């Protein structure tokens, strides 16, 4: 932030700082639930939130005579600004991935749904940031949450296939609950009997410690 306006340009994942003027004063155009499916709407909201949180910290930091002292004092807020920046990175990379050619029937569509779920889930979870920085209104927040709920319904029929895509063998996953064929309960029951405690019906220690109690 301190280099903004100088000839040292922000690069890489901080490139959005180049548009700091716009991002400091824009407000989201989302009017309808569908608007929250647009990558541009999502991206702008996340970028504006990240920029505004960084700039706010920088402004408060500038009031300290000793910057190092200021950094320590404000570090909890700085962490939140850092989180906002990093979440933006993940969201933007997901959106970039979807702009590439992705073969396979319905594959890209599913990934778009997951991308929107990831973004809107974060937006809802960190709503305080988005509202307090004025990036979105509480009305926009509410329709975003409605959209998120509808996205869950779209994932539901595809959920098992989506985790099948990880292509894990039962051996590698090592989980009765997550076994490929879903035959969970009989297998849980079967596994139980392998425990060393089940070597005998009457456990070691019963006669020595418990029987005297029962018989006293």
């Amino acid at each position: 932030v301190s280099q903004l306006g100088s000839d040292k340009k922000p690069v890489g994942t901080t490139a959005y700082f180049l548009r700091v003027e716009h991002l400091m004063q824009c407000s989201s155009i989302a009017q309808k639930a569908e608007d929250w499916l647009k990558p541009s709407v999502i991206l702008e909201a996340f970028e504006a939130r990240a920029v505004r949180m960084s700039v706010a910290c920088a402004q408060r930091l500038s009031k300290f005579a000793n910057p190092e002292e200021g950094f320590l004092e404000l570090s909890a807020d700085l962490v939140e600004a850092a989180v906002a920046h990093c979440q933006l990175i993940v969201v933007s990379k997901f959106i970039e991935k979807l702009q590439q050619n992705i073969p396979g029937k319905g594959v890209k569509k599913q990934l778009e749904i997951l991308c929107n779920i990831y973004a809107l889930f974060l937006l809802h979870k960190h709503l305080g940031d988005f509202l307090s920085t004025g990036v979105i209104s509480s009305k926009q927040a509410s329709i975003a949450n409605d959209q998120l709920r509808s996205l869950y319904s779209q994932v539901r029929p595809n959920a098992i296939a989506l985790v099948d895509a990880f292509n894990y063998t039962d051996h590698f996953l090592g989980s009765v609950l997550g076994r490929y064929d879903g035959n969970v309960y009989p297998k849980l029951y079967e596994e139980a009997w392998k425990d060393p405690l089940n070597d005998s019906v009457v456990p070691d220690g019963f006669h020595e410690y418990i029987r005297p109690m029962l018989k006293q």
Partner: protein
Amino acid sequence: GDHLASERKKANFDVDEMKIVWAGSRHAFEISDRIARLVASDLAFRKDNRTMLSRKELFKNTLRKAAYAWKRIIELRLTEEEASKLRFYVDEPAFTDLHWGMFVPAIKGQGTEEQQQKWLPLAYKMQIIGCYAQTELGHGSNVQGLETTATFDPQTDEFIINSPTLTSSKWWPGGLGKVSTHAVVYARLITDGQDHGVHGFIVQLRSLDDHLPLEGITIGDIGMKFGNGAYNTMDNGVLRFDNVRIPRNQMLMRVSRVTREGKYVHSNVPRQLVYGTMVFVRQTIVSDASCALSRAVCIATRYSAVRRQFGSQKGGVETQVIDYKTQQSRLFPLLASAYAFRFVGEWLKWLYTDVTERLQANDFSTLPEAHACTAGLKSLTTSATADAIEECRKLCGGHGYLCSSGLPELFAVYVPACTYEGDNIVLLLQVARFLMKT
């Protein structure tokens, strides 16, 4: 020496008085302090080797401790309050938790006077060991979905307890796998072809002579659980019934009963009585949350004062981690939560007595609110505490991952609280339902 002496000198409040506030009263503090020292000073209660024992050794050791604790309780003529404090400081999940915490209260809550007179003395003297067999392999939070059946046979004046499917196997009840001789079993009551929903029955599981399971009963341990040590000191069990017969009078009949002819009769004691027990159990869970949270916070706070990292100017002494705002912003809200949960737990104790008194006076007006409120507080405090213990592990840096830090085992023992006695999300929905109705 006391590395934290300089820290303690900084305090600007009276610690001894705060101890009383935390304990709840001077009386509670004195008992807790005395019993804590008693347990800490007795080598028989050592617990630093739990993570090194095999499961069989660990379990046998738990039986030894439980028997030893019982002997000490009798020798020292401890009161019920002192005995429960002793079990708290022994700090090891064991069959005794369910015998005293669920089996006895269930008989007290749902047994008729005669049934209490018959079973409670046996339970109090530990001449029988009981557990609470409700949850099944296929059903947990939805009690009304349980599949185990109890069909009345008017010919023999008995109930036939049966596990019709694999998923109806009882699964999880603590103490069931290896130790318990009896259980309160929850099953669908069926009489003259009618299903009257889930009711409780006292069922003997094992012979009191050779401890072998009785005819038609299959019992075992459900296998290792999360963490080494932790809940593996407990024989959570699996139980299947193959048409096991019990006398009719072993149905807990305070709320409803079946006559000799097999007629289902609702006694005038309303079903809500069961809620009283539920409020009691949830109140203990909330106060457990404050205890578990305070242990994690105590470890993380002290270590954060000991641990120094970065911050030194020109090679001087590094900064204490507890002086970093980021550490404070993560740790101090958890410290505050420990006290917050403590005081809401104290209020719940009051609420429980209030609900019980109102039930005695047939006043059910506050019951739905009390039920929703305790469901929500159980959910909120246990979720927050489980997350907080994990946060405290991270607050201790890499060393928090060592078993010797105490945090892995505390986490492993504590996190089941988020799903037992009602899944936390399901409980919050009960609160929401009540809010919408309101």
